[in-house]
């Protein structure tokens, strides 16, 4: 599977580019508060990473993101690899300098984006083929190409290219393919198994192609869909590659939440404790709290910034859809306890009045939603450090569901780590 040479190259890289320390562990659940020491910045976990797709957080400056308190953000390899492209990024000295962000960055492999945005042609052993949106040609994203672009971008953490067919249910062609297998459990398992093994081979190719292991950390991605056996096998193999951190992929695609938490739980049980665990694509408040109880350290999601642009504000008791007419004469701030600029200066009524017409409305709501996310993560972390995380979870859930109608999956998930709502 893997040569001993690439394995040892990874181990020695760990101590150079990533310094992981568990600051505190919850004595009840599997939650941990850690310090992830990266080249540009030490990141405190559990951590939520906002997504800055094309080298910008949709209308906010790097300074505004820094002032909110984020230590790490995410950049998208597909977008940046196309525009402005790896050659220009090298000239610019990497993404950090290009967008003037001095703290840490994580880049994804580009695979997921391509599946969700472009028409999928074919997945071969070589790589993933797509119809080019700009010409008649075919684009091929190989593990080597993905790493090449990510090396040029220069992020602190880079992601392996995984076999995207197994990892997602989006994209018209992929859905088509999955449908055909869905009614046949056995064939579905075979498909998963095949793609999962390919993912491991692609991981090895990524490790081989990676030029900057002394200053960029390559994370692997555990796949296997919702099948516990496949997940188990994947973890077993992937851990042998000894990457500095491990991501859990293939979830947050709209699957049943009962399956979701069980897979997360299994993975965190099996994964090594002394490395960060990154759950990809998760960002709803309840999910963040529950998965932190299950032992996840890192998250990313477009949700807070995307929903801001649609006029929705996140609050400890749910959401406010500020376009609604009920807010037109509501002269309260979004959340009177929120320290953000938007809550300090503006009322719901005012935001309601500008939401459809001024881009500044998007910026103001993004600032609020990102502040909400970071405050949530900081509260989670603080409660773990002070060993009162279970009480924090109970209080959080009570505020989010005052009538006690907790979602069943969350009740079950928390019960599995000894929090009883």
């Amino acid at each position, binding site marked *: 599977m893997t040569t001993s040479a690439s394995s040892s190259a990874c181990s020695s890289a760990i101590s150079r580019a990533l310094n992981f320390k568990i600051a505190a562990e919850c004595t009840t659940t599997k939650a941990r508060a850690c310090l992830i020491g990266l080249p540009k910045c030490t990141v405190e976990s559990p951590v939520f990473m906002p997504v800055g797709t094309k*080298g910008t*957080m949709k209308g906010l400056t790097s300074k505004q993101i820094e002032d909110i308190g984020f230590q790490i953000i995410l950049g998208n390899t597909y977008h940046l690899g196309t*525009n402005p492209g790896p050659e*220009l990024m090298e000239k610019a000295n990497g993404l950090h300098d290009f967008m003037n962000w001095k703290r840490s960055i994580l880049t994804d492999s580009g695979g997921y984006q391509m599946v969700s945005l472009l028409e999928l042609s074919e997945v071969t052993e070589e790589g993933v083929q797509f119809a080019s949106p700009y010409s008649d040609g075919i684009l091929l994203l190989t593990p080597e190409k993905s790493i090449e672009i990510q090396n040029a971008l220069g992020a602190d953490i880079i992601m392996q290219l995984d076999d995207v067919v197994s990892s997602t249910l989006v994209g018209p062609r992929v859905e088509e393919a999955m449908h055909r297998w869905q009614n046949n459990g056995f064939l579905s398992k075979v498909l998963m198994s095949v793609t999962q093994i390919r993912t491991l081979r692609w991981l090895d190719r990524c490790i081989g192609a990676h030029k900057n292991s002394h200053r960029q950390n390559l994370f692997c991605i555990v796949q296997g869909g919702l099948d516990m056996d496949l997940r188990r096998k994947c973890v077993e193999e992937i851990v042998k590659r000894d990457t500095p951190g491990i991501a859990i992929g293939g979830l947050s695609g709209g699957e049943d939440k009962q399956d979701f938490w069980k897979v997360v739980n299994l993975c965190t049980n099996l994964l090594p404790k002394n490395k960060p665990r990154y759950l990809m694509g998760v960002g709803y408040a309840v999910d963040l709290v529950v998965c932190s109880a299950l032992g996840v350290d890192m998250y990313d999601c477009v949700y807070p910034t995307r929903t801001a642009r649609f006029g929705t504000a996140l609050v400890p008791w749910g959401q406010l859809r500020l376009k609604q007419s009920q807010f037109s004469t509501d002269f309260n701030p979004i959340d009177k306890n929120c320290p953000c600029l938007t809550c300090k*200066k503006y009322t719901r009524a005012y935001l309601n009045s500008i939401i459809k017409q001024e881009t*500044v409305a998007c*910026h103001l709501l993004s*600032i609020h939603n990102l502040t909400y996310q970071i405050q949530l993560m900081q509260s989670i972390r603080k409660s773990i450090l002070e060993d009162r995380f279970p009480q924090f979870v109970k209080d959080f859930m009570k505020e989010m569901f005052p009538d006690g109608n907790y979602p069943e999956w969350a009740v079950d998930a928390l019960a599995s780590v000894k929090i009883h709502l």
Partner: protein
Amino acid sequence: MAGPCCRLGALQFGTKVVETPGFFIYNRSGVVPHITPDLLETLNNAPSIVMHTPLASILEEPGLEKLRKYGKGLANFIGYKDNSFYISASDYQGEAMYQYNENKSVSVWTKTGRTRVTPDEYSKFIEACQPSWYQCLCDTVPANATTKRTRKSVDRTLEFLDQCLNYRQKQGNNLKATEIWAAVEGGGLIDERLRSAKESAKRPVFGFTLEGFSSDQMNIETIFELLPLTTQSLPDEKPRLVHSIGSPANIIKAIESGIDLFDAYYPYNLTENNLAMVLPRKAIKSLNLSHRLAEVEEDENDSSDDLQSLDRSATFSLMNLREDKFKDDFTPMVRGCKCFSCTNHTRAYIHHLIINKEMLGGVLLMLHNLSQYIEFFDCVRSSLKNNKWKELRALFKA
């Protein structure tokens, strides 16, 4: 010596001072386009910034009822309680639809369409807003309107002014803390301009706005023929504001015609077209016109093909950030510019944002253009104080 009518002055409100010649920042629906309040604070003299809000952008939303219910005035509602506000009755963007004005009302165009506003309704709205200043309701015609229609616009506007002034005398009115500006009309007819100016000057107003002088309502020669003649009929001790004259060259000519204040559509329109203002820094520095100017390196090896020489040129220019030549230019937009955008970001990054239609592109360009505009006015006042007007004219091609 500066032109015949150039004036240096200051507007005082509370503890703040706006020096003239100066400008009010364009504010639409309560926001400066693209700019959140924390970014606005990075501009020089931010607390003294006066916001110019056109009526059309606030008439419907928030609207009278909402503002009354809120009860704390427009400035508070839109998050700028420490800034002063000037509300103009007219909106200077888009086509002026004067044919829809009537004897008793003016038509204001909002998102949902046309609203007729009478002077009393306007006054009530101003009461709910509580700005520092407001323009009286006015009926403005372009220079090519008929004589009859032009006369009517002068008559109507004076009538509107008198009604607005009557409202201010009414028992229990809430306009004591705000000041009214008269609107001087007259289209392209010198007689009507003089009549409007002299009649307006008889009324107890704070200042005068000169209407109809934008380049789509009047040709440029007529503008600078009529402006000085009009201002000469206005009292010296009261401020004069003209809307929609915005390029540095035209501002200089307008100041020579006796104008004190301007608006900020120009930097806004530049931003919408991906253009950045480039003040001729080296020249400004050598004339000692800006005390805020950073050190501009003396580089003897500059060739005229060097992209950097754009900010070394001897006169004012514009830069189009969309152009391909900036895609790998990792220098600031304008070297030596101390604005947020030039201090933190590069031409290549801003070019990338614009090409990818990212909102941050507009944010960074707007901040830069406002910052340059502020600095331009600094140079204007400085050149008046230091007898360098002729040199200023040359720098800005006036």
